[in-house]
């Protein structure tokens, strides 16, 4: 049995739908259940439902053999895992956003759920900024004077607009990736390559 970590939240339904296309079926009530562990109909997979930012940790330590997580999380956590496939789902952009008409302050504070990516982004531009790590509702920070800018994911841009923010710069495109534990890749070779093949067939 392969243990697969799936991210609750934004891309969960897209994951379930993609897995179904690959012949890996979660129980029908997966999206609404409060259970954190589910088994596929054919008992070949056990799914654990965790916070997106935790998916790489489960996989890196081998608590899960495989997982699905966004490139945003992968770049932030930098786990030592295999990442063979881009699943072409959960597309979004990570952007730097600020208040419209707001002139650049000389010392910039930036609120984000992605402190590592943010820091690196500005360091590569040769700029020193103060990164303020938050774990959610980042868009509120500028209105409350906590920060001048935010770095966050956008899909439609609605949340930004509602909070009077506008995209200033694009940092990267994100999609969902399949990740695999380095030991499991070898120790559960046949099951893993079966999974890879069925996914590749879907993607080609």
């Amino acid at each position, binding site marked *: 049995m392969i243990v697969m970590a799936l991210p609750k939240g934004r891309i969960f339904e897209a994951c379930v739908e993609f897995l179904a296309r690959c012949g890996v079926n979660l129980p029908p009530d997966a999206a609404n259940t409060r259970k954190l562990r589910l088994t596929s109909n054919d008992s070949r997979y056990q799914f654990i439902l965790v916070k997106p930012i935790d998916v790489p940790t489960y996989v*890196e*330590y081998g608590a899960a053999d495989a997982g699905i997580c966004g490139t945003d999380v992968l770049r932030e956590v930098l786990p*030592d895992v295999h*990442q*063979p496939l881009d699943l072409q789902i959960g597309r979004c952009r990570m952007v730097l956003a600020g208040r419209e008409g707001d002139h650049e302050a000389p010392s910039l504070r930036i609120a984000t759920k992605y402190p590592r990516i943010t820091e690196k982004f500005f360091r590569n531009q040769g700029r020193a900024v103060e990164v303020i790590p938050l774990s959610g509702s980042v868009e509120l920070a500028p209105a409350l004077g906590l920060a001048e800018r935010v770095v966050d994911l956008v899909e439609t841009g609605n949340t930004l607009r509602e909070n009077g923010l506008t995209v200033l710069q694009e940092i990267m495109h994100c999609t969902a990736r399949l990740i695999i534990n380095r*030991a499991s890749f070898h120790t559960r070779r046949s099951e893993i*390559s079966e999974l890879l093949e069925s996914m590749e067939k879907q993607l080609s």
Partner: protein
Amino acid sequence: MQKPRTLAPGVQYFTGAQSKNRRILLERFRSVFEGWSYQEIVLPIIDYSDSFHLALGPELEQRMYSFVDRDGSLLALRPDLTTLVAKVVAAEDKAELPLRLWYDGEVFRYEDPKAGQQREFYQAGIELFGSPSVAAEIEVLLVMLECLERAGLRNAIVPLGHAEFFTGIVEALSLSVEEILALKNLIDHKDSWGIGQMISNLDLGSAKQEFLQALPRLAGAREVLDRAERVVQNQRSRQALERLASIYDQLAALGLERHFLIDLAEVRDLDYYTGLIFKIYSESLGFEIGGGGRYDSLTEKFGEPLPAVGFSVSLERLMAALSLPVPQKAEWEKAASFEQARRMRRENKRIQVEWPS
């Protein structure tokens, strides 16, 4: 100042059952090493930073604990034991080759403590100097398997790769240094998709593109070698494949097939290894327990070229992969006085003294 009770990050201490089991494992290793006629080498904990830089390159150097000696020279806590063995061996008079050495001891690396990685950890291993032959590689792998078995790890999975396989491919592609690094990083993560993205911008021709994209999947049973042989043209890679086939077949002839796999996408530590590369995995642990390979150019950096093969395991990781029994509490006898205690100790009895009140 830190609170007096705080331990520094990335260090551990062991006591009770844990320390006992460590001793038991190390003792079993020692007996296997000595059983194959390897001699112990006890190494310094501190050496010049330059030695490690020379051997390990800038990547590991960044993770060294370096400090300045009183005379101004830069020293480091050893981040690796093989370097020290190679350095010592290069300087020694080598009357007898091959030279078989074993060691165990602490290693120090400055990294974020995570996934079985502490800043201070304990390694045990062997180095076999003086032979470029397949036989040397087989011997090292057999000693390794015996160590793991005696330790109680019976399901070890060891993927075999070869440093020259990747080198040959890169050579044939005439890529820039940055492109090679990027490609290596993608292969290391078995990222076929990323390779596809990268090479779509390079003018390689469709056959080469397809091959590169399939490279991360050149891992599995013996047939991987045949698959690779059908598509690889360059001489270096083909020789690497032949070598791996010869190693694998000898291991199979010894009935050890179930432990070994082929992984041609194994590209870590290429600055160090020159031939065979292997990693040790077990179903019961999510990361490697140890590894090794052939490093024929290391002693040359210290002035004396000598072919070499070796392996090492991380003791903490091995223990995490094993479910070790809790050792029995030892029985002891009462000694009523210090005089009696000394007498009983001469008879090698385990005692506890009843102190006069």
